[in-house]
């Protein structure tokens, strides 16, 4: 897929480019700060080859705070449907909610260290590029047990919430089954129950993303 990368550390940016190209992706734009990222995305879209994914560091120049995250929100606003994977230093960011509130999917939020776990990182970017939602396990762990006072999540059983948490981390039914030592059929049953309890009708094609978004929205950091 075609990827735009924004990362202010030249070393890490180079490392990411080499890795992504090695596994067969095409880098169509690179940026070292937030304004460059916006330009790179605009240019890629203008040249009739819209990126399949934008990967951006949160903490970048010019202000070295959450410029990358704000740029990501900006990109989502200006070019709806461009998937964005955000890499952060920490669990909590002021604008994460805005990113996740975007109900269209195609967003990811991972802790930066995760890029070292290459296999799962590559899986995560595939999920996001396909319109899924991936949120870092540590963030999800932080979310679990923190819900608004009245929440549709209350209708879920403990097990179903665990399954939904793993879905939010971007796991497939297969990997969830492995994680929880369940059969895939059992996981599929839990997932079906989750969809039903969250009032997601079978004709909805993107129920998985919606379930995850509901989970994230109803949990507060």
């Amino acid at each position, binding site marked *: 897929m075609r990827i735009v990368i924004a990362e202010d*550390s030249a*070393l*890490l940016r*180079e*490392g*990411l480019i*080499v*890795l992504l190209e*090695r*596994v067969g992706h095409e880098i169509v734009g690179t940026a070292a700060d937030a304004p460059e990222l916006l330009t790179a995305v605009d240019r890629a879209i203008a040249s009739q080859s819209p990126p399949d994914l934008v990967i951006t560091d949160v*903490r970048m120049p010019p202000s*070295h*705070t*959450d410029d990358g995250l704000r740029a990501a929100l900006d990109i989502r606003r200006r070019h709806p449907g461009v998937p964005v994977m955000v890499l952060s*230093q*920490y*669990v*909590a*960011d*002021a604008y*994460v*909610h805005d990113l*996740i509130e975007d109900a269209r999917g195609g967003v990811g*939020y991972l802790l*930066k*260290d995760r*890029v*070292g776990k*290459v*296999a799962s990182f590559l899986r995560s970017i595939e999920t996001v590029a396909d319109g899924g939602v991936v949120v870092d396990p*540590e*963030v999800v*762990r*932080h*979310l679990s*047990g923190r819900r608004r006072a009245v929440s549709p999540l209350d209708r879920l059983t403990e097990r179903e919430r665990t399954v939904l948490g793993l879905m939010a981390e971007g796991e497939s039914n297969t990997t969830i089954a492995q994680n929880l030592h369940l059969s895939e059929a059992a996981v599929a049953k839990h997932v079906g129950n989750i969809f039903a309890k969250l009032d997601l009708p079978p004709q909805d094609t993107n129920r998985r993303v919606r379930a995850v978004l509901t989970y*994230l929205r109803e949990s*507060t*950091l």
Partner: protein
Amino acid sequence: MHPVVSVSAWTALRRPPWKLLASSLPWRSGAYLITTVLIGLVGLAPLMVTWFAAPLWAISLARLERLRVVVLGAAPIPEPPTGTAGARVGRLARRLREPVTWREVAYLAVFVVFTAMSFVLIVTGATAVMVGATTVLGIQPDAENLVAQSVASLGAPAGVVVSLVIIVLLVLSYLTTALALLQSFVAQVLLSEQSEALARRVSDLTYSRRTLLEGFDIERRRIERDLHDGAQQQLVTLGLRLALLEIELDDLAGHGSDVSAARRALSAAQDDVDAAVTSLRDSIRAIHPRVLVDHGIAAAVHELASRLPVPVTVDINLPQRPDSNLEAALYFITSEALTNAVRHAKAHDVTVRGGQEGSSLWLDIIDDGIGGADTRKGTGLAGLRDRAEVLGGQLTLRSPLGGPTVLHLSIPVPANPDLTERTTPDTGSDSNSA
């Protein structure tokens, strides 16, 4: 210093008369008052003419007067410290603005009164001595000797006159001693280093202590930035390179090569890199957490809470971000308190609340653990108290055996918002959520 003199003056005057008179004190007092009068008489005319320069006269007089108490057997009064560095003109201007200068001017005014009183005492004493001498020596009155004339005009018997003179001289020596001690006491009070100088010294020390702490915080942030932008990025990149190697090995294996040994070595290297990244991340967090710098105390405490094995309710709402060293203090105090709650108090539930009330920030950390915490035990809590006190704050701990433990911190915030570099509002618990 002056209490020492006043006490000794008081005891001197309460001594039996023969002891006082046998001591050197009345003589010293006489000498002190005579010099007072001499200085007064010499200085009065120039002062009258150049009254507008009274502060300068006062400064010079004060310098002399601090030394002159030596006549009474006291130690010289130390010169109060004044900011007298720098260019000559500026130095004088600054000296004139010192509070001690105004006390010196006050002393000059009082000195005039003392000169007059001393003058009266001395003239009286001199007259009494002359009357006595005239009587004892039997000097005959003549046209030039006014004293002898007046003595003769009294017509009193010589014995009565001499007794009266002795009584007058005794009373005078008491009055002289009292006046001299009083004047030196006033000199001590007005001319020595005063509470405002002490207060200034304390505020200087407080300032330098605070500056040192700020220096530490700045240094910590620099180290954190260096590690974060340098070593951490390099380690993560190293992890990526190893992952590339893994991909290449998979390729080789696909072509039928035996890569199992290489794969084991690589896997060990990857574990090492993971461990290094994790431990570096923990170190950086302990030195100065990035999230604190970027997003303020509420977000940083959320992040802190997310790593604890017990549920922590965080509710911190500040109208604006406090300055960075105050933020750091709040963070490290919370961090230590949370660690204590989990490690020592074995808490199952912790609440961190914070806010601003008027001009002070407050923070409560409440846990349902076993209690019994004491700021005197161990260095952790004592260190927190020091840290709060440096910022003018107060830390109170209530921790009965059996719990709950309530740690309350309140720290004044500078009234001047210019003191805080950043004006980004510190988002509260809800707006920091993800």
